[in-house]
Structures are given as structure tokens and as C-alpha cells.
């Protein structure tokens, strides 16, 4: 009987908390949480890397011999290809300049923030940063990696910290375009689609025109459509293209440009006001 009463109480209080949390009535409590724990988290994150390496070593021990042999063979092949890549590297540098990823954002203002937590539930792809409303961070603001590529957007902002939804989160959807993937029907303009997060594949470029010429390695950038992201932010590159006969659209799996799970510092783009903040 006691357990039944306990259960009824817990369910009632939990549901009430969830509703209040949705109404932002519990913000003062939530605001305290990560501010208190972030110093401990900082230390633990510093310790995490060697622990993770050790863990990976234990898990993968059986594959080390085969892996070593494979790497030796791959090294030989890579050495032969190195000369060709030097030429390609020059080409990439030109593309980056053309995209404006490195040089075209000099007029923008950024706020540097440290990553203090990551969601580990697996159902979401989110990180917490140590900047909040007191630093001018607002929900909807765009977050970039130190290299200038897209990381995600702020979706919960508290006084002292904010939660950032990564581009690989199932809730994330970014209007994107593929460089060098122009469909015949669009007469030379770049192929456009929507980059959506996916628990299985990470990041998928959906809604691509079926006649678009997308191939592995093509760079994908924000198109700026919708006004929630500035144009020409690097999202990633095409990893694989899924051809679906008879389907009106194509899909492509993307490799995010930023290493989303090892980020320690990010840049919040404060000079760009997304359409969702500016309003109609």
C-alpha cells in the first residue's frame, strides 16, 4: 500500500514538475544546477580523455594485430597518394576562401564558450556551454566550432549556461545546399536540401532533387533559407548518396565538418539574429 501511495505521489509531482519546467517556472532551480556542478565537470572532462583511450584499448584489444597489419598496408597506399592530395589541399584552400568560412566572417561577432556537459542519454545530441542570458546568449542563436563550421543552435538558455542542440540531434533541421551538386532542372544553381539529425546515421541531407549531381566528398553549406542560419556556413561533406529509384527526392549521409563529440570550446554567433528571434 505504501508503494502505491509513493508511486501516486511521485507520478503527480513529476508531471507537475514537467509542466512547470515547460512553462519555465523552474528556471531558477535549473539555472543553479550546472553552475554548481560545472567545476567538477571540468576536472572530470580533463580526466576523461586518457580514460576513454584506455577503455577503447581494452575493448578493441582483440583487433589490434589485424588493425596493425591493415594500417601498414594503408600507410603504403597513403604515401603514394600524398602527392596527389597536396594538389587537392590547395584546391580545398581555395574553396574555403570562396565559401568565406575562414575569411568572410570578419564582420561577425562571436562569443567564445566552454563546453561543460554533454547529454549522455543517447536520445538527444546536446551539449551545455558556460554562457547564458547574462552574456547575451539567446535561444535560437547559432553556434560554430572554433574552425567556423556549424555545430548547432542554442535551444535552452539560462542565466549562467545554455543547452545547444547539435546538428545531429533528431530535432535539428538546417536548410542546406551542396556545392557542385547542381541539378539539371535548376540550371546551374546548387542542389538544395534539408540537413536533419538522425540517431542512426548522424546527419542526413534530405529532400535533394532527384536529378541533382551529388557525389561523395561534396561540401555542404547552409543556404540561409528561412533566416534561421546565415549563408555559407560549412556543415560537412557528403559521405554517401542514397539512390532511390522512383523517389522524388534523394538522400545523402553527411560527415559533419566539426568533431561534435570532442568539442571543448565553441563560438556563439551573437551578431546574427535568427528569424525565430526577430519575429515576423
Amino acid at each position, binding site marked *: 500500500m505504501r508503494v502505491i501511495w509513493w508511486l501516486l505521489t*511521485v507520478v503527480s509531482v513529476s508531471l507537475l514538475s514537467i509542466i512547470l519546467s515547460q512553462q519555465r517556472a523552474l528556471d531558477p532551480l535549473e539555472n543553479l544546477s550546472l553552475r554548481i*556542478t560545472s567545476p567538477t565537470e571540468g576536472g572530470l572532462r580533463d580526466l576523461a580523455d586518457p580514460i576513454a583511450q584506455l577503455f577503447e584499448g581494452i575493448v578493441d584489444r582483440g583487433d589490434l594485430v589485424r588493425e596493425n597489419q591493415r594500417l601498414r598496408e594503408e600507410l603504403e597506399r597513403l604515401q603514394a597518394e600524398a602527392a596527389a592530395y597536396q594538389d587537392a589541399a590547395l584546391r580545398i584552400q581555395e574553396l574555403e576562401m570562396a565559401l568565406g568560412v575562414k575569411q568572410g566572417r570578419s564582420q561577425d561577432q562571436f562569443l567564445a564558450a566552454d563546453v561543460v*556537459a554533454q547529454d549522455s542519454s543517447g536520445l538527444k545530441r546536446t551539449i551545455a556551454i558556460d554562457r547564458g542570458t547574462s552574456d547575451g546568449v539567446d535561444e535560437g542563436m547559432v553556434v560554430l566550432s572554433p574552425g567556423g563550421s556549424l555545430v548547432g543552435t542554442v535551444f535552452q538558455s539560462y542565466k549562467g549556461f545554455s543547452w545547444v542542440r547539435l546538428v545531429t540531434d533528431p530535432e535539428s533541421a538546417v536548410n542546406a545546399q551542396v556545392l557542385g551538386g547542381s541539378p539539371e532542372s535548376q540550371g546551374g544553381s546548387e542542389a538544395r536540401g534539408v540537413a536533419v539529425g538522425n540517431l542512426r546515421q548522424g546527419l542526413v541531407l534530405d529532400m535533394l532533387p532527384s536529378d541533382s549531381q551529388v557525389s561523395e566528398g561534396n561540401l555542404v553549406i547552409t543556404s540561409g533559407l528561412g533566416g534561421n542560419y546565415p549563408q555559407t556556413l560549412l556543415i560537412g561533406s557528403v559521405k554517401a548518396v542514397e539512390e532511390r529509384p522512383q523517389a522524388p527526392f534523394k538522400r545523402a549521409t553527411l560527415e559533419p565538418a566539426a568533431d561534435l563529440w570532442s568539442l571543448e570550446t565553441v563560438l556563439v554567433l551573437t551578431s546574427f539574429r535568427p528569424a525565430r528571434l526577430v519575429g515576423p
Partner: protein
Amino acid sequence: MKYLVAFTALFLLAVLGVSAMPYVKVLGVTPDLVLVFAACWTVARGQGEALVVVPLAGVLRDLTTSDPLGTSVLALSPIVLLTATRALWIMESELVPTLLVVGAGSLGYGVLSMTVLAATGQEMPWADGLLRVVLPAAVVNALFTPIVYLPVRWLSPQPRPGLAGTAPSSR
């Protein structure tokens, strides 16, 4: 005192869960040590203490994630119900029942979390979520259970049967 110990352990595990643990991925998921600890404490120390420790674990977990407050408290509550079946356990060893409670508790936690997130308007890919997160998490949490179970067992005052099912009188 016992609740202070539980609080301290849960606090550290909750912080560990959002700082260092995301780097540890097995079957594509990160072990949830807060859930494992709550389940181990419940089995080792009885339902009476579980009524306090399980909500405490939920609150601490909620405060360190982006989920709405109350989600984890609700999602962890099946653990208490699972231990209500304790009288039915025929095994002398407590490790196997603990593994079952952790596995079943993880499934319940995953499904309830997804339900709450979906109810609060978040996009929830059910098939991928269940197959790629909830089910693997149940297995991975069970795999990590001995690491947490042994210290919790050691902290528990009453003599219990051994890990391999050995009765206390035979030790």
C-alpha cells in the same frame, strides 16, 4: 548518514555522466551509472530506502540534463516497483536479480523518457530510439552493474548471500 552517502555518490555519478562518461561508448550508448546505482542500492538495501534514493537519483539526473525537470524521477520509478517482486526471487545470489532489475529498469526508463519527450513536443524517432538506444542501454547498463554493485553491497550492513549464490552460512 546513509542518505548522505547515497546523495554524494549519486551527485558524483550524475556529474560523471555528463562529463567523462559520454566518451565511453559501448554498443553506441553510454552506461547510465545513476540508474545502475539506484537499482543496486534498491536491491541491496531494500524498498524502504529505495523510496528516497530513487527520486533523489531522478532529481540529480534531471538537473544535469536538458530534459524537463521530473522526467528522470518519473522514468526511474519502475525500479521501485521491480523490487516489489523481491519476495518472488528464488535465487540466493542478489547479483542476478540486480542485473534483471537494471535491465528492466533501463527499458522502463528509456520508454518513459521517450514518452515524456514526445509529450513535450520533441521529435522522437521511436524505432531508432528503441533499437539503437533503449535496448543497447539495457544491455550495457547490465554489463556495468558489477562495478557499482560490489561497493554498494559492501556498504550494506546486513550479511547477504555471495555473488555466486553461496549462502552466508557456508562462508
